[in-house]
């Protein structure tokens, strides 16, 4: 397959309640332009929402901004790919510890499910994190609507 027609969008969002919806809508619009199926778009939107919430709730960033970059690529033959980078300038986190969280009814940890949800809804996820901030790179492949 040959990758063509890349589209790109960059957003700088304030860490305010429900801003994750704006990010998800932007990615959804770009994916719709590529013809991606609605269920794939919904999965991507839910992953993006969790990534933005993690940045807002847990990053501890001083600038209180979320930096979002989205690219959309048509792969030909009715296939497309969306890449999303969510970056904060916070204090970073322990990825291994975050991945190990599991919730049970009655357990102390009812929260902390964001990463599991992101990894379940996206096709590829990679995280770069340090004391200077975190970037989560997520990829969604999609078949186009017929």
């Amino acid at each position: 397959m040959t990758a063509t027609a890349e589209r790109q969008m960059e957003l700088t969002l304030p860490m305010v309640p429900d801003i994750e919806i704006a990010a998800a809508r932007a990615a959804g619009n770009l994916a719709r332009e590529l013809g991606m199926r609605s269920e794939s778009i919904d999965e991507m939107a839910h992953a993006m929402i969790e990534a933005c919430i993690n940045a807002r709730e847990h990053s501890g960033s001083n600038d209180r901004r979320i930096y979002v970059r989205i690219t959309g690529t048509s792969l030909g033959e009715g296939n497309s790919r969306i890449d999303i980078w969510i970056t904060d300038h916070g204090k970073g986190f322990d990825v291994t510890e975050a991945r190990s969280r599991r919730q049970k009814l009655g357990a102390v940890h009812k929260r902390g499910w964001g990463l599991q949800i992101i990894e379940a809804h996206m096709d590829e996820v990679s995280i770069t994190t340090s004391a200077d901030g975190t970037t989560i790179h997520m990829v969604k492949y999609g078949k186009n609507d017929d």
Partner: protein
Amino acid sequence: MTEELKVAVDRRGTSGAILYTKGYINNVGGEEIASRAYELMEGDVRSLLLNLRETKIVNSIGISILIEIIEKMIDKGGRIGFCCLTPVIHKTFQIMGLANYASIFTDEDQAVKEMGLAS
């Protein structure tokens, strides 16, 4: 920017009710649902169905509040069900284990029948 959740209540008999949600189930939306659910539980409702037909987006904080509602209902010997979930919300419920402790129904008719909520 806010995404307000609306909740409507339909009482079914003395011990049943259906909650209809419309909008984003985040922390605020989850608390709104919890408030309505706890009022109903105080009023002896023990069979509660949440119809999410008009909810297309949830987040993990909102779902964690739904889990708290389920826990309280189980403590009272009752039952909670969900119906009309989008495929992605259904998948998210399964990821977080909610589907293990509440009943998930495809549509309201099936839920009403299974949960004994006929009006």
